[in-house]
């Protein structure tokens, strides 16, 4: 039995974080359940055909209800804290801005950096908890040799969430626990069952929590309408890689790199979005093979296992350019203040500005940055 500690658990009302709370409680720790209220799911209802309320998602009342029930079942105090303003400022606004600039954002990473491992960590400390535990599939460990906290891939590689956690600082990692890092998902469900948690069979959440049905265009419409802001007009030309104008489009937010459908032009061979030029509104299209490239630059870099000086010389890594991307062998090098160059051994398909590039050394997260 580990020494009993006071541990706050970030509870979402899902199986994973519920299992974490139950497990830590069973280990004899003094557990406090916390949930952040981040977004009012009913807020945009009535705007542009948004649904009334979406159940089974982050911040829906159903999820808070589920989390509360779990807390009651396992016998821990549970609190909801309101961080809607922060969420809107640090996640929603940048999300909207990125799309309108022709990039494809990842709100989950922003939420981890600005809310879960910032605001919630502060609340945990305020209420007297030494550490914050979450239901993420990842591992955290202290490396004596390097004198650094490391973020590592979990035992269940199919559930690996390290891609969304690359922004964690040493300070944040030092106070974070990922109790599911050594477990497989079926074991987690079994654990929830053993603790008599009614939600053991609840399906995993997949979508972006505040975008019902994954329809981000509808969300953008509704949000801007609610804010009384005009949808910025970003029409432009569809241009082939050889510079030929083959059509026009109504706005850059309609496109994402690698997209094939919905281009509004009919040509003989299938066309894909290769590049979106936010400045001129030009959307460059081309053949599938033109989607491949061997280099990317990333900025707003966070390094975990190494320091900046360690990257003056190129480092061999494997790099992920989206959540479901299998890590690809590459060379990583610092090329400017807060900017890295990644050179892949093999060309990679659809490197997408706005997404994160995350670098691994085996199962250790070296760091990551935002693709330019």
């Amino acid at each position, binding site marked *: 039995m580990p020494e009993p500690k006071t541990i706050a658990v970030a509870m979402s009302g899902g199986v994973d974080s519920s299992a974490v709370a139950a497990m830590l409680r069973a280990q004899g720790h003094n557990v*406090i359940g916390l*949930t952040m*209220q981040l977004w009012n799911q009913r807020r945009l209802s009535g705007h542009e055909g948004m649904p009334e309320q979406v159940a089974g998602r982050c911040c829906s009342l159903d999820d*808070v209800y589920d989390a509360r029930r779990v807390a009651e079942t396992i016998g821990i105090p549970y*609190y*909801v*804290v309101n961080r809607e303003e922060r969420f809107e400022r640090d996640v929603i606004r940048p999300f909207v801005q990125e799309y309108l600039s022709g990039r494809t954002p990842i709100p989950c990473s922003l939420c981890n950096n600005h809310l879960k491992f910032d605001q919630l960590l502060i609340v945990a400390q305020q209420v007297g908890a030494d550490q914050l535990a979450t239901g993420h599939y990842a591992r955290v460990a202290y490396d004596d040799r390097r004198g650094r906290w490391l973020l590592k891939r979990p035992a269940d590689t199919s559930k690996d969430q390290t891609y969304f956690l690359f922004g964690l600082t040493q300070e944040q990692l030092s106070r974070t626990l990922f109790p599911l890092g050594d477990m497989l998902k079926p074991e987690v469900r079994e654990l929830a069952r053993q603790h008599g948690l009614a939600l053991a069979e609840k399906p995993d959440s997949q979508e972006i929590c505040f975008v019902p049905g994954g329809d981000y265009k509808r969300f953008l419409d509704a949000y801007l309408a609610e804010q009384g802001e005009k949808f910025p007009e970003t029409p432009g030309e569809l241009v082939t890689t050889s510079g030929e104008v083959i059509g026009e489009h109504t706005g850059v937010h309609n496109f994402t790199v690698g997209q094939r459908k919905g281009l509004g032009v009919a040509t003989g061979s299938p066309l894909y979005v290769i590049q979106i030029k936010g400045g001129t509104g030009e959307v460059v299209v081309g053949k599938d093979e033109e989607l491949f490239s061997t280099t990317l630059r990333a900025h707003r870099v966070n390094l975990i296992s190494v320091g900046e000086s360690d990257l003056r010389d190129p480092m061999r890594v494997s790099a992920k350019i989206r959540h479901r991307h299998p890590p690809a062998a590459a060379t990583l090098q610092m090329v400017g203040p807060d900017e890295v160059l990644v050179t892949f051994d093999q060309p990679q398909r659809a490197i997408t500005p706005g997404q994160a590039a995350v670098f691994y050394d085996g199962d250790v997260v070296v760091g990551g940055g935002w693709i330019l």
Partner: protein
Amino acid sequence: MLRVYFDNNATTPVLPEVFEAMRPYFSEHFGNASSIHHHGQDTRAAVERARESVAELLGCRAAEIVFTSGGTEADNLAVFGVAPSGSHVITTSIEHHAVLNACKALEARGCSVTVVPVDGQGVVAPDDIKRALRPNTALISVMMANNETGVLQPIEAIGQVAAEADVYFHTDAVQAAGKVPIDVTRLGADLLSISGHKLHAPQGVGALYVRRSTKLEAMFYGGSHERSRRAGTENVPGIVALGKAAELARTGLERSDDRRLAAMRDRLEQAFLAIDETGVNSAGAPRTPNTTNIHFDHIEGEALVIALDLKGLAVSTGAACSSGAIEPSHVLTAMGLSPDRARASLRFSLGKQNTMDEVDFALSLVPQTVARLRELSPVYRKLEAARH
């Protein structure tokens, strides 16, 4: 763990005498008060005795009391009951949501609503109410005591404004009943709401005083219960409990229980004011004896509430929304408090069951917890560094 409850404006424990009074009305005296047989007569008598007791607390006739499911229903019945479509309603920015949101719904039904502001102490000026009057004003609704600050509004003066203008006057007295004397005639109220669970009766029962000759439109369609003003079989155990609680509230006021509450409240305030950068919100206004709202600058009230709860002290901040998350207080904001100060404010509300020992327990926790939270606050640390 020792647990001390200082959140009596949210709800109060049912007093043992109240519980004893209602207990026989579940299984023993279970009749429907509308039935003609013995069982019905039995409970009808109990309901009418309770009505008399509530009437006595408010200084009105028994026939002017309508039992409801609670304060919210009483407020809704009052607001929707006398404001016809197309009319004008005056209310204030610090009302309970039961009134504010009812008024919002009225707007959707074609009424116009004027929301009168309050001053820095959270007090409404009767002149502002007067100035807001229009030829088609049907209702003025101003609460008697505020739930967050305890501030007592100049109800008599507003009642006079209403009488002179010949406009219906409703006051939400949910937080005043049992804490300060109420006399509907002196207040000039046509409608007055109370809630059982704020005065040691259970949740789920309340009452609306409706002055005789008030033309009140019922909200529910059904039987002719409560003189056709509130359809639905009476909640007999709840009503009996409310009757008993009203009786205890009346005798308590005669015994000057309010002075005991005020002594505990004052002791809390004195000790809190010894903490740096701490103050009493609405200190300059007349207030109910049981409530104090304190701003501990540079902390988050939300965190303080949680930290104190984990140590056994129950207090609150603002009003909780459906998820249980804390929203910024519309009352403190309306008084002109900065968002930071509103977020740094906590409400301590005492009840008959509380003791001076419990006040001491609170005082053993609050100052050290505030100090610890300030230590963790980057803003506070920066200010401290600048001062030294």
